């Protein structure tokens, strides 16, 4: 009897827990859904009180309006371009520096790696002013290269790659390649890189996110609208049209949906990689 009672209690407990979790899940997706339904409402419905959930007369006018008011296509293309360039650069620099720091001995190795690590914790916002002044001097303000420059390098990426190469790549394998006459660059490209898929993927996700999310730097460096990324484009659009909620939501939907699709397609991989990188500091 006691056992039966306990399982019944447990079942009630489980049900309660699932109710709470479901409610929580609803809170998690609600802002996105609310954004989505608002984007399809005509202005009159947006200003309704009490608010209605589903649009009564769904319209795509907000989307066409938003695209007329600001070049969101351009912003989006810029964001993709910046993020891809930064990701490729971070991948290359992290692979090269990670390999060299992880598998080779040379004078100053400890010092240089320590220097890289020490700067990893300094937040970007703490040195953006001098960096800005440096770019003024070389006249890179308001240029593509000026916008991507600080995101081409990621100390944490180098750290992650070094940890991976040092622990997961067998030195004997490199020796064997060397005996067969392989050069160091060849070893890096053909031995280390193919064995580092997971680590490289983790670094890529991190670099892509970081470059995609940049706001304060393009805010300082990009003056022409044609150079804005999505985040800055949306922000300035927001200040200019802060009363036109429908268009704002439409612009936001355009920015969020591609990310959601990519995430849902590669869900497991992204979550696992982010968890691993998050714990490796």
């Amino acid at each position: 009897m006691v056992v039966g009672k306990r399982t019944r209690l447990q079942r009630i407990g489980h049900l309660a827990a699932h109710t709470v979790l479901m409610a929580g899940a609803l809170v998690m997706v609600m802002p996105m859904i609310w954004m989505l339904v608002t984007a399809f409402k005509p202005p009159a419905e947006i200003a309704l009180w009490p608010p209605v959930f589903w649009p009564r007369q769904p319209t795509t006018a907000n989307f066409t309006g938003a695209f007329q008011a600001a070049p969101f296509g351009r912003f989006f293309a810029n964001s993709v371009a910046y993020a891809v360039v930064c990701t490729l650069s971070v991948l290359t620099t992290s692979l090269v520096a990670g390999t060299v720091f992880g598998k080779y001995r040379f004078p100053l190795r400890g010092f240089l790696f320590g220097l890289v690590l020490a700067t990893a914790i300094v937040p970007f916002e703490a040195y953006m002013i001098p960096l800005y002044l440096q770019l003024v001097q070389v006249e890179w303000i308001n240029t593509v290269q000026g916008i991507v420059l600080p995101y081409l390098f990621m100390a944490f990426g180098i750290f992650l790659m070094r940890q991976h190469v040092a622990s997961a790549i067998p030195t004997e394998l490199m020796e064997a390649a060397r005996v067969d006459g392989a050069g160091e660059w060849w070893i890096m490209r053909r031995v280390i890189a193919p064995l580092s898929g997971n680590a490289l993927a983790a670094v890529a996700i991190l670099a892509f996110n970081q470059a995609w999310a940049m706001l304060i730097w393009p805010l300082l460096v990009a003056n022409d609208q044609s150079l804005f990324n999505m985040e800055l484009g949306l922000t300035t659009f927001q200040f200019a049209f802060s009363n036109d909620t429908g268009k704002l939501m439409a612009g936001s939907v355009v920015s969020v949906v591609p990310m959601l699709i990519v995430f849902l397609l590669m869900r497991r991989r992204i979550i696992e990689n982010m968890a691993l990188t998050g714990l490796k500091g």
Partner: protein
Amino acid sequence: MPSEATLSAGRVPAGSIGVRLRRIRYRLRIPLFCYVALLPVLLLFFYVRIIPIGFGFILSLYRWNMISPRKPFVGLANYIQLFGDENFIAALKNTTIYSFATVILTTILALPLAVFLSRQSRLSPFYQTVYFLPVITPLIPMSIAWKWIYDYNYGILNYLLSLVGLPAVPWLTDPSIALWAVILMTVWKQLGYAMVLYLVGLRNIPQEYAEAANIDGATDTQRFWRITLPLLRPILLYVLVTSSISSFNVFAQVYVMTVGSQTAPGNALRVLVYDIYTNAFQFLHMGYASAEAVMLTMIVLGLTLIQFRAVRSDTARET
């Protein structure tokens, strides 16, 4: 390279200068490769990290408006002035509250969530995905969405409050409330990330501990406080400190949600990075803003040192 390999094997008699040179070249080959490979990376690293960080320290000792050729050295005057600056004090206070509140609230929610989801359940992957969704959504569009939710006149949050008979709250226009509105939004955004980290930590706890506890008749609550939590301590500590460090440079959501909203101009929620930004790029107080940026670095460094200490004493206790 094959020729070098035979050389090092010593089959060619040593002596001639050419051979000796080649030998030296071989011995230097590896360090040479290292420096050649590292050179572009290090150049970039120095230009975008080391030089600006150093330059920032120097700049903080000067008074300069970026345009004027006059750039007087003022020593620590900028720092002294900072501690009498209301805006800076307010920013420091707000940022500190923001950091610790987001981290604590996130942990309080994420930890039980992770503990529950760590037991195999059919719905577990579903919950994980849904709770992780906000993490991967870009920050700016979601800040805009939350601004609409917090809207004083038409926001659904105030509508929900009105359903239970509560008065409307000026979520974003009153800076002291806006701080908590931004905290709430950030907790929503970060919760899934903390959950995933704790899940990894929980998965690494050997199953035998739980089984032993069950045999000894421990209840679920006892098991959580006596076994799970102590074993999770290192990860918990790590996540707490790193996320409070990374919270100190909060800017984007504050900028979007509270700066220059047409409903309440000038009621911006002051946080450190926003204060640095306005001092440097609106008032052109480059030296002063640099001093403020150095303060930000110092805070982050201080927190990192605390973390190192804590982790070290933690591992010391275990061994």
